[in-house]
């Protein structure tokens, strides 16, 4: 792990990556590629996604330890493995999971009858996004205690995690300006079902040599967990699972905490064979005002021990008064305040960009010449992906080869460098038969050999009915 990291830092200077859909990006036969770049070139006249099956996406990853590192049945004592995993991780290592399910989607070309240069697309999808950094300082304090860590500053900010479930309603507009330039924009309405945000923790705990006593313990805590949509589900008034389910479905359809956002993107054909494109997705926020419950721990305190024999007699304080005051100080320090202060969260912004080169036209059987009107059969390119995350952005670099095998069947193979691994090979296929389209794609093939040792896996698939250009 350490070794990987050193190399990766060399290449990217940051860690990488969640929610990367490097295979789907630019795979324009698939209507859902418009969700990754609203300004992509659209190759169909319209489409209807098969409800609940038009886009299923799951992705999970870890930049640090794998399940196999910890749980392999290899005879090594679990405590040894646990310690080795902890000491080989740092507080920027994370676990993340993302899931998206399109409820429905569709699109159609608009414009004059002869040349439709505009395209509208719309849909609803549900998304779950979870990221948790590994709180290494907390774990190491629990493993070792402070005795061998005098002067060490244990960072309270190591506890950083976020989880959200949202429904997204979107409407996109795509315009072909001329044969070279395409742009698009998509407006999004977010309805938050549940949100947990513990990314704003600050502070520290330090033990050092004291002046009045052997040690002084310095507590400096500024911690908060903000939640929306959780309190009503866990409260006693809410009696059953059915009610919870009713509540959740209400929130999924505009009943939750609402937010707004947008995606923008473009495609620019530099020459007939070179293409540059890019997009920025989920520039948006959710305002959490309903069903908000926040937990706050805030305080500074220096503890040097107690002086029971010589309390502040001048102020008439007895030893017990002194002790009680001290206990109160500690209780205040760790007292969890519950508040209902509304808050705003930003969606993780994503950036995609790629440079592509297409080549190799189809040869006609009868004349050893190429067909003029058909496009190129091959493409190679490099894609860059970045996503904003609580501690620092994550990035991934992909190179790919695309091949149209024949009308109705295309393949795309990818090789991606990110923090999960250096061996990330992906493969996607899009097939179409009489307008009925199917696609499936997955990455990290080399790690399928032992899934428990995988640092990241993602899978996307979907079914659409596509109306092709005549």
């Amino acid at each position, binding site marked *: 792990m350490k070794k990987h990291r050193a190399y990766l830092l060399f290449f990217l200077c940051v860690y990488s990556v969640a929610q990367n859909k490097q295979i789907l990006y630019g795979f324009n036969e698939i209507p859902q590629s418009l969700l990754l770049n609203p300004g992509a070139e659209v190759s169909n006249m319209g489409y209807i996604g098969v409800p609940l099956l038009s886009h299923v996406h799951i992705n999970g990853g870890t930049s640090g330890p794998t*399940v*196999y590192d*910890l*749980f*392999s*049945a290899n005879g090594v*004592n*679990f*405590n040894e*493995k*646990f310690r080795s995993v902890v000491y080989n991780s740092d507080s920027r290592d994370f676990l993340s999971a993302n899931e998206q399910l399109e409820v429905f989607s569709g699109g159609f070309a608009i414009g004059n009858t002869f040349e439709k240069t505009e395209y509208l697309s719309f849909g609803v999808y549900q998304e779950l996004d979870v990221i948790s950094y590994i709180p290494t300082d907390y774990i190491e*304090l*629990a*493993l*070792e*205690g*402070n*005795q*061998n860590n*005098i002067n060490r500053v244990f960072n309270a900010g190591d506890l950083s995690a976020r989880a959200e479930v949202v429904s997204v309603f979107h409407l996109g507009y795509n315009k072909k300006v001329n044969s070279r330039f395409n742009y698009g924009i998509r407006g999004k309405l977010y309805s938050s079902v549940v949100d947990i945000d513990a990314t704003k923790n600050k502070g520290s705990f330090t*033990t050092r040599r*004291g002046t*009045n*006593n*052997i*040690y*002084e*313990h310095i507590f400096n805590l500024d911690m908060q967990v903000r939640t929306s949509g959780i309190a009503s589900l866990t409260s006693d008034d809410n009696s059953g699972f059915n009610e919870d389910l009713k509540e959740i479905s209400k929130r999924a359809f505009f009943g939750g905490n609402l937010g707004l956002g947008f995606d923008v993107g473009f495609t620019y054909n530099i020459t007939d064979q070179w293409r540059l494109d890019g997009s920025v997705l989920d520039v948006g926020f959710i305002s959490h005002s309903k069903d908000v419950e926040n937990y706050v721990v805030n305080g500074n305190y220096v*503890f*040097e*021990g*107690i*002086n*029971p*024999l*010589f*309390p502040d007699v001048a102020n008439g304080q*007895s*030893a*017990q008064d002194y*002790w009680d005051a001290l206990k109160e100080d500690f209780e205040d320090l760790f007292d969890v305040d519950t508040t209902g202060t509304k808050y705003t969260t930003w969606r993780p912004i994503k950036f995609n960009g790629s440079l592509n080169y297409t080549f190799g036209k189809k040869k006609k059987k009868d004349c050893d010449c190429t067909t003029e009107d058909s496009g190129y059969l091959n493409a190679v390119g490099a894609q860059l992906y970045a996503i904003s995350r609580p501690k620092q952005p994550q990035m991934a670099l992909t190179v790919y080869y695309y091949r149209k*095998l*024949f009308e109705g*069947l295309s393949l795309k193979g990818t090789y991606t460098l990110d923090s999960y691994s250096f061996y990330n090979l992906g*493969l996607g*296929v899009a*097939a179409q038969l009489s307008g009925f389209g199917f696609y*499936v794609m*997955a990455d990290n*093939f080399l790690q*399928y*050999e*032992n*899934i*428990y*040792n995988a640092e990241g896996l993602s*899978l996307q698939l979907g079914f659409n009915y596509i109306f092709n250009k005549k």
Partner: protein
Amino acid sequence: MIPRSIKKPCLPLILVLLFFSCVKEVDFDQANDLELTPVMSSSLVFFDESASSFVESGSEIDIIQEFLIIDLFTDTFIVENLVKAEFVFLGKNALNRDVNLQVDFLDDLDVLVHRFSIEQEAAVEGSEVFTEYIETFEGDTLLALKSTIKIVFTLRLIAEDPIPDDITGRVELQSSSNFYFKIAAAE
């Protein structure tokens, strides 16, 4: 057109790639073996007093006693997970008196369950005397600690016979505790 021989195996091949994945043997029950063994150090009592603190209305005080009600040691977490404790005392005495600190541990019935005391000898010709004392709680003494809800501190000044001059100098005591835990994930 692409020959049928290529076309046919294409999809099945991909599906096989996607869904044919292996796992090597893992054992999630191992998590039950997890054991944390932190050693927490904490400051305890301290004082730093000059001779004048031991004089009241012109006469010398030779005993000071205070007690604290403490519910820390009987806490379930401590009772279940604490396997050893040490109290470390560092003294520095420049008083022309011996100083004795006696620490008594009493349970909820006010019964004495443990006692130790720290002697700090009087300064020799004005130069301070350093003391180090460690009280270890293991076995029976640990059980005694875990039943303690009251600690009584008794500080005595012991003068040589015949009683020397007026009390002079100062006395200092610092202390810390080391709590050794063994916290098992599964009981």
